[in-house]
């Protein structure tokens, strides 16, 4: 089992998993926040657009989204996210498209987590904010969203853990992350519990602290009512 760690760059593969997770999480948080704002906005068309995005993306398999990003957008429509003539264009394009796909997919879940957070803020607060003369965006920024974020930390943690594990799907468009290396090792060394165990352990090491951190954060930061 240990010779596998010597022969293959397991840590490098997990480093790629971490990079995918971090960048996609940032992207998903930004897009998800915008979506959540759209879904609680007073403008009907924005609400419908937000709901349409969430319902479409959330109900599409991630595999499909990533294959669409790579095969559909990169190879058939030829939308490059890097210089197509560079000597690492395939690798760079795939990583970037994987991040775009993962961020777009998880944004739908971030949006719903945030919206549940918005629902923890009593309606009276929004009414009070508007009645002292704050505009919609001011009341959102100063009153509602800060409390919504604090109220939705636990579900956001779940989304982050799911995102970490979902990065494994990126191997199907050729990103050299952990599960891709696992396939390679199984091809060369044949499948064994040792290989399975190493990678399962790797993911537990990545996700368990995140879960503990977010649980304690949600306990400490939740708005006591």
């Amino acid at each position, binding site marked *: 089992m240990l010779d596998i760690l010597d022969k293959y760059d397991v840590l490098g593969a997990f480093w790629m998993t971490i990079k995918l997770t971090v960048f996609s999480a940032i992207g998903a948080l930004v897009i998800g926040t915008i979506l959540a704002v759209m879904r609680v906005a007073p403008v009907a068309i924005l609400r419908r657009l937000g709901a349409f995005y969430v319902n479409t993306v959330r109900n599409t398999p991630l595999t499909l989204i990533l294959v669409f990003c790579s095969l559909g957008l990169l*190879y058939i429509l030829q939308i490059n996210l890097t210089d197509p003539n560079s000597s690492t264009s*395939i690798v760079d394009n795939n990583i970037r498209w994987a991040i775009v796909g993962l961020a777009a997919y998880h944004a739908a879940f971030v949006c719903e987590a945030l919206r549940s957070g918005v629902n923890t803020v009593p309606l009276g607060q929004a009414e009070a904010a508007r009645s002292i003369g704050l505009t919609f965006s001011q009341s959102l920024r100063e009153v509602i969203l800060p409390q919504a974020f604090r109220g939705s930390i636990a579900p956001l943690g779940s989304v982050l853990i799911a995102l970490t594990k979902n990065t494994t799907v990126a191997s199907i*468009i*050729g990103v050299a992350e952990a599960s891709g290396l696992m396939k390679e090792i*199984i*091809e060369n060394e*044949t499948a064994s519990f040792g290989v399975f165990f190493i990678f399962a352990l790797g993911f537990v090491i990545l996700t368990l602290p995140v879960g503990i951190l977010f649980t304690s954060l949600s306990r400490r930061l939740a708005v006591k009512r």
Partner: protein
Amino acid sequence: MKSRGLGAVAAAAALALTLAACGSSSSGDSAGSGGGTKLKIGIKFDQPGMGLKKGSEYTGMDVDVAKYIAKQLGASEGDITWVQAPSAQRETLIQTGQVDMVVATYSITDARKEKVSFAGPYFVAGQDLLIRADDTSITGPDSLDGKKLCSVKGSTSAQKVKDKYPGVQLQEFGTYSECLPALATGGVDALTTDDTILAGYAAQPEFKGKFKVVGQPFSQENYGVGIKKGDTAQCTKITDAIKKMISDGSWQKAIDNNLGPAGYKPGQGNPPTPAACS
């Protein structure tokens, strides 16, 4: 509080293990366990030319070889239960007895010999390149520098390209089928894997005339029949069947029927001499 958390983690892990166990066993057993001359044979279901499932029909070189061997072992075609054997599951299927043999583009390697035994080889394939029919810039492995290749994630072919041709960029997908649109639009310049598989794709009606196989194999893959480790008696019977198939002309006929339409000619080393069983 803490112990409850640990309990939950343990329960989750146990559940994951059970699910993993289910995943590998669910493919077989539609006809129940076979007694007497019944045979369960693992083949690929998705490789045109080698092992392909279309409706309830199975076609391909591997299928014909398996049928011939089954006949020599005393089983008729109706006694065969076909089981899907994806690359990563082949050893497990044999070790757990879910199949009696695997005939699924199964290259004989030393690492695999530690888990299963092989009879054969019954065929020698080589890694080759599939390119667009109008592409004249690629004539073989030496003209690949700076080109973009496509293969399947984790496959032996993909690793070989990475190791041997560092100037090549490699796109890896989950299946070979996904490489074809990328090849058609010019996103990648070639698809690389065993020539038998490439010939199968080039011969598919929807791609006819669009792609061609270069025909300069740069590796040797010995396809063998995988059986339970140490089963020398079975191995000897299968080896005899393969020898007979080659000598009575059925072997050549199987190649002509399955790979001939793609203009495929078996490369060096064919027909092979099956190795002695040990």
